[in-house]
């Protein structure tokens, strides 16, 4: 068996011999780019794009490579694998191609290997023939792959990192050449990155890993794979070693905590022992931001955790019953470890207990598209992967399962999200550094502009000069409130609609805090809203209304507001309680992507399908620490 695996590996490597493209073009440096004093521009990007180098993306049928992903993000028209003509109306500013490190390029290599080289390896041969037989065969292979990865039953040639080193090394270098060719400081930023995908029993513990550095530097290591270790502490050690050896920098972005079965934001380490100060510090250092929203659902919070939050059900349907591979059911008791808001609260608890906060993270959105094409507008949703691209008439109602077990349907997938980054220039350095200081926010697609500053002595008048006052007298999103100099923290907040999307319903401040007895609480404050509405006796702001015309796929901006801005002071502040504050911005109701599919192909969606939603943004929190 061992021999056959080696044979397969050799064949697969041989098939992947890439054309000898030398590192002829030197890494262009960004020294000529002028950085603004404070971030003046929000840069939009997707940190989570899979190309045909990802083992599952290729299996799902994706035939678009890194270069196509770059061209599309930069604004060019690209034909999706199944024929849909795709183009963004506004280019993205940056991209991280985050192909799965595990078995990087393996399905593509297997597919392209000479069949004769696989004779004798019944396992590989079966997949090879299935993939070549038909698209359905290729999909079956992919489902088996995800299942096998979850159950740990994949053959050595797919899991042994050493045996694959040659193939992955060539591929990683070739990928680096392309990334370098498309990185244009000041215009478009292309990051080196990969995805680390531990999935014990199908519980999602995935991270996107990105580099601040040139491809040349990133090429000095191979992507760290879940096949080397399922314990994220080993990833952090790999990151630390890279930084020590090269002087470079990396960060990791956890995502899809919603299908982690409570394990992404656990109170324990991977081995089950309680989190200690060393772990907490390392995690906060290595994982300064998380991906709170993406195609596979939204991870901000859940109605079970936030029963008083009438907007907590967004992006939850289909994702809260079973873990990633749907191999295990998830109980509501696990949710506290699966959603961002409760994780921020757990962070306060752990800080009290062990002296450091492992969950002091900012929030971004990104797509996790497996089509190479980072478009998350509802009207032109390209799909999770190439088997559910827009050319498939009823993709919104077909079962769409990642493993082999049924339970999810097309409409459960969200056309979400992007990362907004307040950086001083569009360069690797400036964008990466903004992520490190958490001056970032998540959106479910629309590019609304959100500012959020905290300080001790802002006043209502400061709203007129929000940005300069904000930076001069306070800290932006992601920051810490220190040196308490008044009774309660004050905030300056603004949100401007995406001029290509919908009006805004409201701005909310989400507060979480820890009481003296160690229990945590959360509360939502409506702080600004469009239209003539008053907060009711129940403390709730009435709904903004609904103008969606499902037959036409339109809405009217007669409700809500184009822009909201406000000053807010916490009316319930207790100086002894550590707390966090983040902003949630809601758009007025608009149609979901299945509605546009139904109009395009002329069919009727079932009652179970969610057809109207309120798209939203989540900022990174600002923290208050009683000890200063």
């Amino acid at each position, binding site marked *: 068996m061992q021999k056959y695996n080696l044979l397969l590996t050799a064949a697969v490597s041989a098939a992947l011999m890439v*054309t000898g493209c030398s590192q002829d073009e030197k890494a262009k440096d960004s020294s000529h780019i002028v950085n603004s004093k404070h971030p003046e521009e929000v840069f939009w990007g997707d940190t989570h794009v899979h190309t045909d180098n990802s083992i599952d993306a290729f299996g799902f049928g994706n035939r678009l490579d890194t*270069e196509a992903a770059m061209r599309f993000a930069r604004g060019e028209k690209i034909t999706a694998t199944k024929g849909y003509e795709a183009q963004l109306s506004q280019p993205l500013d940056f991209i991280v191609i985050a192909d799965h490190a595990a078995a990087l390029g393996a399905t593509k290599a297997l597919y*392209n290997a000479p069949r004769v080289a696989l004779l004798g390896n019944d396992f590989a041969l079966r997949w090879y*023939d299935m993939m070549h037989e038909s*698209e359905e065969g290729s999909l079956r292979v992919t489902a088996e792959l995800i299942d096998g990865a979850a159950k740990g039953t994949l053959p050595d040639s797919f899991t042994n990192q050493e045996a694959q080193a040659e193939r992955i090394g060539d591929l990683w270098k070739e990928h680096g050449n392309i990334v370098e060719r498309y990185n244009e400081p000041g215009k478009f930023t292309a990051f080196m990155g990969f995805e680390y995908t531990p999935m014990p029993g199908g519980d999602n513990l995935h991270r996107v890993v990105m580099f601040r550095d040139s491809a040349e530097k990133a090429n000095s290591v191979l992507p760290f794979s879940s096949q080397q270790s399922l314990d994220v502490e080993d990833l952090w050690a790999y990151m630390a070693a890279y930084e020590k050896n090269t002087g470079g920098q990396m960060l990791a972005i956890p995502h899809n905590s919603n299908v982690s079965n409570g394990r992404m934001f656990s109170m324990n380490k991977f081995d089950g022992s309680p989190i200690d100060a060393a772990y907490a510090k390392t995690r906060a250092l290595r994982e300064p931001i998380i991906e709170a929203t993406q195609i596979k659902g939204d991870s901000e919070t859940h109605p079970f955790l936030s029963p008083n939050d009438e907007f907590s059900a967004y992006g939850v349907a289909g994702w809260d019953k079973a873990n990633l591979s749907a191999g295990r059911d998830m109980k509501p008791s696990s949710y506290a470890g699966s959603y961002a808001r409760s994780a921020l609260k757990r962070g306060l608890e752990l800080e009290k207990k062990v002296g450091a906060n492992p969950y002091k993270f900012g929030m971004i959105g990104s797509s996790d598209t497996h089509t190479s094409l980072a478009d998350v507008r509802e009207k032109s949703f390209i799909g999770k992967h190439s088997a559910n691209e827009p050319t*498939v008439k009823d993709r919104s109602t077909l079962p769409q399962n990642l493993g082999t077990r049924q339970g999810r349907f097309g409409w459960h997938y969200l056309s979400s999200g992007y990362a907004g980054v307040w950086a001083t220039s569009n360069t690797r350095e400036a964008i990466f550094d903004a992520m490190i200081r958490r001056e970032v926010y998540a959106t479910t697609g629309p590019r609304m502009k959100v500012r959020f500053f905290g300080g001790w002595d802002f006043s209502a008048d400061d709203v007129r000069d929000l940005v300069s006052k904000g930076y001069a007298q306070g800290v932006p999103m992601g920051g810490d409130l220190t040196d308490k100099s008044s009774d309660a923290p004050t905030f300056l907040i603004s949100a*401007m609609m995406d*001029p290509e999307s919908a009006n805004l319903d409201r701005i909310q401040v989400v507060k979480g805090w820890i009481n003296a007895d160690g229990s945590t609480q959360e509360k939502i404050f409506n702080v600004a809203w469009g239209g003539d509405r008053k907060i009711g006796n129940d403390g709730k702001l009435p709904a903004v209304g609904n103008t969606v015309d499902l037959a036409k796929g339109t809405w009217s*901006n007669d409700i809500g507001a184009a822009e909201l801005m406000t000053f807010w002071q916490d009316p319930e502040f207790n100086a002894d309680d550590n707390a966090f504050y983040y902003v949630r911005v809601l758009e007025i109701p608009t149609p979901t992507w299945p509605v546009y599919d139904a109009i395009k*192909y002329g069919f009727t969606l079932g009652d179970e399908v969610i057809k109207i939603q309120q798209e939203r943004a989540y900022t990174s929190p600002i923290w208050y620490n009683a000890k200063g």
Partner: protein
Amino acid sequence: MQKLLKEPLVHFLAGAMLIFAYFWAFGPSNDPLSYEITIGASDIDRITADSIRTSNRLPTHEEVSALIDQAVKEEIYYREALRLGLDDGDAIIRRRLSNKMRSLNNSEIGTPSDAQLKQFLEKNVAQYSDQSRYAFDHIYIGRNTSSNQDKEWLKGLRDGNLNVDSIKAPLSIEDKQPLSDESMIIRRFGSSFTDALAGIKMNIWSGPIESGFGQHFVYIHERQNITPKLDDIRQRLSNDWRTQQIARSEKQIFDDLSKEYHISIAPIK
């Protein structure tokens, strides 16, 4: 005789006779080595059925036509591969051979020289000069405005006797947009507003023009067409040049191959 029956050559010849007999009996309807390709009505039915199976709907005329072109291409590459003896009689090998032939075509593309890039830019200058720059003032007046009032306000603006502050609605975008690339204006105002700028006269108040925020009166001070310079877009040019070279070489090789074929295709129903 016994000895003869064990001779491999005899086995081979016998096999060849069998194949010959088969073709003699059933006709060379699909001789893979001929230069005749016929896409008949039944082929088109099959192509259409395949498409329905993956997309669960009838393909459009254009889609069927594209699928036929793809089938022809696949057939040509396949036959060329057979001529090179790349087959081993496996049914699955067919698609593989076609792909293989295609990748053999992908000759290595080097790094373009400045002279090559300059020439490439000159040839494709339109592609790189589709953006303009504008400097303009705008007055945002909100969403729900009446056309009569709009006309009155526009007249007032043009005559210079309207108090601008009295009609302005709040929006925290600067009233003056300095000379900026279209990409920057799209970032601020969205693409429909930016597209509309192209149709507006300079040095006079116009509008209102609609953006995602609502209505704006606009006064354009300056409009520049961007003339791309090699140094500014060297990298983009180099990327595009490479892509073009690869596509061109693939097309060239395919065209040379397909020239040898006589291809007839039945009309699409």
